[in-house]
């Protein structure tokens, strides 16, 4: 059998992860530095601005809560796009992408849940209510955990990637539910005041720190995502090489 032709035909594909590693290695320091800078700036701004006359000092929780909540949804969207990449183009990087993103999404969702609860206690008088917004976020958290569990339960990486891609796409219905739950059902939770069609209705006093923090969180997500993807690629390489080593040993022995 002619093996060189195969090596060549596969070479274009293989170039992808390799090129990705090289490229991301160059970008990462810059991205990380920018993230750190913006995070510091955002934190500074969120502690120096005025409090709200109605919500008092607790409005500062918003600067963490809202970016984390946005990120929890954005992360899922990133995963959904990668899932399409897996199913339609069968791109190995897409597999890696949504596998690496799931723990990040779970973490951001957890932050949104925790800060939301901590905000709810002084504002609503309770840690937790079962309203549509809160519950749909909780469901999102469970879906992240379910996906992580699914990925861990299978050691055949390409197959696990395809299956979780199907699930990610089916679960995407939850995202619009989270986004619009405050409008479809009447809940305790705030309706959107920043991202809406007729422009933000929020006081610019709060808008600036919020925006800076949101950008900082987004960059943080991308930094971590790139790092996690690199880790995942390395993990697969190691696995393949281990198998190969064992098989070669088996042949010679």
């Amino acid at each position, binding site marked *: 059998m002619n093996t060189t032709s195969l090596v060549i035909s596969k070479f274009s594909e293989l170039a992808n992860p390799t090129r990705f590693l090289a490229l991301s290695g160059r970008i990462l320091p810059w991205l990380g530095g920018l993230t750190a800078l913006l995070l510091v700036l955002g934190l500074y701004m969120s502690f120096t601005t005025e409090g709200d006359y109605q919500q008092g000092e607790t409005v500062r929780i918003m600067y963490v809560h809202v970016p984390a909540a946005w990120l929890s949804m954005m992360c899922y969207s990133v995963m959904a796009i990668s899932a399409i990449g897996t*199913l339609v183009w069968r791109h190995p990087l897409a597999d890696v992408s949504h596998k690496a993103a799931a723990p990040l999404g779970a973490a951001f969702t957890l932050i949104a849940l925790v800060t939301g609860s901590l905000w709810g206690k002084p504002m609503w008088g309770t840690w937790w209510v079962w309203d549509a917004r809160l519950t749909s976020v909780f469901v999102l958290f469970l*879906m992240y955990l379910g996906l992580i569990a*699914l990925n861990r339960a299978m050691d055949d990486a390409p197959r*696990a990637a*395809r*299956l979780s891609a*199907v*699930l990610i796409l089916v679960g995407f219905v939850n995202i619009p539910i989270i986004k619009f739950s405050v409008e479809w059902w009447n809940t305790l939770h705030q309706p959107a005041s920043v991202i809406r069609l007729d422009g933000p209705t929020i006081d610019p006093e709060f808008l600036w720190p919020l925006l800076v923090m949101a950008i900082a969180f987004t960059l943080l997500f991308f930094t971590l995502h790139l790092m996690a993807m690199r880790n995942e690629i390395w993990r697969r390489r190691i696995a393949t090489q281990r198998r190969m080593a064992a098989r070669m040993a088996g042949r010679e022995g």
Partner: protein
Amino acid sequence: MIALFLRDLKLSVRAGGGALIGVLFFMTVVAVIPFGVGPDLNLLSRIGPAIVWIGALLAALLGLDRLFQADRDDGSLDLVLMQETPLVLTVFVKCLAHWVATSLPLVIASPLLGLFMNMNEVAIGAVMLTLLVGSPAITFIGAAGAAVAVALPRGGLLVSILVLPLAIPVLIFGVSASYAAVEDPAPFMPPFLFLIAITLFFAVIGPLAAALALRSSSD
């Protein structure tokens, strides 16, 4: 296709005991709740529809994970995947058979449970109707989970975790339609129509996703 439907029906009656274990579990749930809320008949009849719906939802999960696994284990799944008939259709028929074998008995048993929960006639009728319309949605969405579970040697709990979050809307609209039928101000039709819409939606999405998962998990 009819052959497939009949075979699956025969199998679940003969081997799984699907119908009975579902109904029994259902009755167990309903029997235990009064311990929690106490013998307050008013309260019971108030939460009745919700309990019946939750019981039905949980009962539908039992056995769902084996929907495709049994076929994989004996090699039938291979032959099914090879055929010209669209896989989506095959999955759809399998879902129907599963629904008839496990959920339909629940629907039929629900009036009895409504009586246990001291619900009035209208409420019982409404619960039965919403169950009849809504429970297929659970089966369809469950099929997607079961198809994913085929790749796993023992799907069990994982399937339910993947499926339950998606089943929540069904529960919400089913329960609210049942309540709307009893309480005057709320109209019955909007949530009920929504329920129908969800079922139709899942009847398309579920088999599609399941077919996709089956194709990509075959090895």
